């Protein structure tokens, strides 16, 4: 007769199932930071920047390349502030607040630097579709005309083919500019690099800050630096997926809906006649918030609010450009 089956003695007991999902160990919150901005005491949370500290005190700071959703690249230098103990001015958008910092935002040094930065931009770039920057120029008393007459626009592709190294020596009688013809190589959006201030935001949006497509990058060096696809090929031959997220972050209108560009060319673009309506995109189940810009009962452009958690201002080709069907009535 065989042995009756006996259950083996248990030697391992699994721990009881947790009643709820265990939480990550609590990180001890670092104490808030006290600093002084323009003589006023400010308290900001750990990790905040000087720009945050300025905002907390309601101090208006000009920014061009800063975008709240992106890592600061601090290249425009329009947000510089004077920091006690620092030889140079520091960019407030990226400089982290530290306890005891003494910051000045209204000193002559700060004002001069901001004025010069705005003057440099206004004298080399077309700011006609950047009303905020124009207002800043006025505010700081920038006088871009003092660098001489603007030089004529460059031929199409001329700036794209410039090489690093020795350049043609100017006579100095005309102020050099980035002016060039608009690039219209697709039916969705145009690139007018006459208006490009090289804030790097479109490269960030196309790259790992948002879209991860990497169709554009900064090429060239110095004053010849420019945003470019590989070998400056048209967008249609590049990796572009036409999400339009670069248009969403462009501060000067260098990147623009073709619909807006055409209406501006025809002189029919009129923002005072436009209504903005928020809705939810119906193309898929993500539920992106769309802001439809409507003029004379026609959708003329689509954006998404940058502070909405679902999109952070980003959309796809369908949400951003797929509105022609509604216009066809």
């Amino acid at each position: 007769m065989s042995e009756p089956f006996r259950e083996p003695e248990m030697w391992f007991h699994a721990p009881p199932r947790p009643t709820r999902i265990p939480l990550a160990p609590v990180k001890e919150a670092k104490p808030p930071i006290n600093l002084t901005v323009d003589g006023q005491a400010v308290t900001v949370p750990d990790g905040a920047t000087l720009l945050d500290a300025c905002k907390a005190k309601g101090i208006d700071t000009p920014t061009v390349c800063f975008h709240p959703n992106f890592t600061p690249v601090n290249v425009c230098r329009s947000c510089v502030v004077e920091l006690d103990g620092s030889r140079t001015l520091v960019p407030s958008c990226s400089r982290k607040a530290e306890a005891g910092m003494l910051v000045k935002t209204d000193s002559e040094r700060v004002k001069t630097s901001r004025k010069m930065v705005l003057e440099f931009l206004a004298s080399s770039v077309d700011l006609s579709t950047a009303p905020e920057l124009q207002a800043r120029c006025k505010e700081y008393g920038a006088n871009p005309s003092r660098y001489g007459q603007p030089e004529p626009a460059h031929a199409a592709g001329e700036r794209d083919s410039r090489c690093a190294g020795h350049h043609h020596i100017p006579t100095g009688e005309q102020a050099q500019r980035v002016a060039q013809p608009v690039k219209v190589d697709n039916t969705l959006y145009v690139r007018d690099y006459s208006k490009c201030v090289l804030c790097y935001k479109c490269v960030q949006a196309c790259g790992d800050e948002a879209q991860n497509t990497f169709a554009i990058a900064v090429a060239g060096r110095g004053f010849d630096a420019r945003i470019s696809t590989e070998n400056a090929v048209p967008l249609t031959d590049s990796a572009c997926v036409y999400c339009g997220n670069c248009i969403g972050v462009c501060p000067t209108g260098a990147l623009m809906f073709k619909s807006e560009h055409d209406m501006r060319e025809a002189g029919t673009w009129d923002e005072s006649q436009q209504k903005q309506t928020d809705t939810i995109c119906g193309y898929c189940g993500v539920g992106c918030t769309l802001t439809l810009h409507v003029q004379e009962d026609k959708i003329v452009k689509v954006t998404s609010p940058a502070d909405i958690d679902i999109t952070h201002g980003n959309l796809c080709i369908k949400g951003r450009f797929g509105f022609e069907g509604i216009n066809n009535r």
Partner: protein
Amino acid sequence: MDIKVNGPEPTAAEREAVDAVLGAPVSAWSGGKRDLGKEGRIALLGGNEARAQRHLLLPTLHGVQDRFGWLPPGALAYLSNRLTIPPAEVHGVATFYHLFTQEGGAPNHVHVCDDIACRHKGGLELLQQLNQQHSGSKTVEVHPSPCLGLCERAPAALVLRSGKVAQGCALGHATVGTVGNALQPDTFPDEGTDWLQSAVPQGGDPKANLALLARVGHCDPASLDDYRATGGYIALKRAIELGGEKTISEVTASGMVGRGGAAFPTGRKWDAVAKATDSTRYVVCNADESEPGTFKDRVVMEGDPFALVEGMTIAGVAVGAKKGFLYIRGEYPLAIRRMQGAIDSAHKANLLGERILGSENSFHIEIRRGAGAYICGEETALFNSIEGLRGEPRNKPPFPVQHGLFNKPTVINNVETLINIPLILREGGTTIGGLGTQGSKGRKLFCVSGHVARPGVYEYVFGISLRQLIEQAGGVPHGRPIQAVLLGGAAGAFVGPGQLDVPLTFEGTRAIGATLGSGVVMVFDDTVDLGDTLGRIAAFFRDESCGQCVPCRVGTTRQEELVQRLRHGKPLGTAADETALLDEIGQVMRDASICGLGHTASSALQSAIKLFGPGILSGKLAEKNHV
């Protein structure tokens, strides 16, 4: 990263050029054939592994440029695939450097220096002659070049021959004839050591008591035995015996500060890295010496390469780094060959590699070649360049000792700083710390060029005055008076004949509003049109600005326009208006630029205008004196 590459199919030769640097592709992910049997459904060398190769971008671009003399789109598309780098970013990096050619053209390139030292010594004429000789040529392309670091043998030219075995050589006292000879395959007119003796005029003089330059021109730079016979590698042994902490104390005791221009205490830098929590650390040697008028690092690397290898190894031992990068500018082919030779010999003798001299310490050195960008001498731009990004400086803080190369704690030192290290450990930190003045300890190399009888690299214990140094260099030829001296290079300042008694120390030069910078002492006699020199300096900064920040990108451009207006006698408003405008441009560049290039881009100009008034730009002064 799933990237989209639309470029043309690579030819067999283009594939070969890329594979020669990267090895054969291991999977379809990196541009090879898909072998389902071998890789199944998992991409070999994909994802993180592929992205971690980004630092190979610059060496691969060099490989392609060396093979064809330009960067064919097919090769770029193939290397995008191989390294998983988006083609737009490859284009962005390739267009950043002026030794890379974008358009198909000649396989050979001649770069002729027309910078501030060479342009008064026949550089402009040579450039014109070569341009005439090779106009329309399909085999040779002639380019004007910023300073080639051969100022003691002006005029200079750099010849780069492409082909299966790419060859480059730099020529001092260049003529149409010597350039022609250097264009022949398999010629290396820069080899040899004879001219090294003239590069160090003090060499062989026992009274000069040279320590840093003692071997240059007098020891075989290829011989490790010669180096060891003259006191080499005693210091490394001592450093290994002392251990990291005590080695750093020695360096601190010597009062050594960085010789690249910023004069940061070396001991403090090393200490911060040694105490970093991250155990992966790097040592980087900045040999991207591009400051116009500077050539000391080249002379040291060509004449005494083992000293630099030893200095870097000691730095690695001291801070606990296993890996060092030596970033040499692409304009120094001979220095690159000699340093590679020294690294290989040191490896064979177990002075580099795993378990150095039987100890627990390991250290490896890899050479990285720059491709023509002054800005890559800025430490954080140099990191970006090694990492395969555009050579744009990073904002500081964080500093390299916390977040440096590959975001790891990094010691980055200039060549001259590192060759002082073996000396400090051999003679003792306190001995070296006892040399020099209150604020400047030890020995300093000076690059003396321009109108002196014996240009070259000079070594002195801190304390010598500018007048004494110029006298030691033989004074101004033909007894002509000195018009001005440029201290510290294009980023430095001019001093006038009334300021020649300034002691060449950090504090002495600071007191008169100048800088020691990289040790440039460029003498201009009264025949030189300083306006032309200033025009070139303004053009230099316009060329070399990386273009990242607005103050420098547009400021250097506006500054050059202003200089040219004054040169042509067509100011906007009065000359005083223009000077006031220059002050404002200078101020915003100094205050708001990201890095040192912008901070110093107007200092030489402003110092000259302060000395001589804006009239100096019109060049009338020199015309009068011209013989």
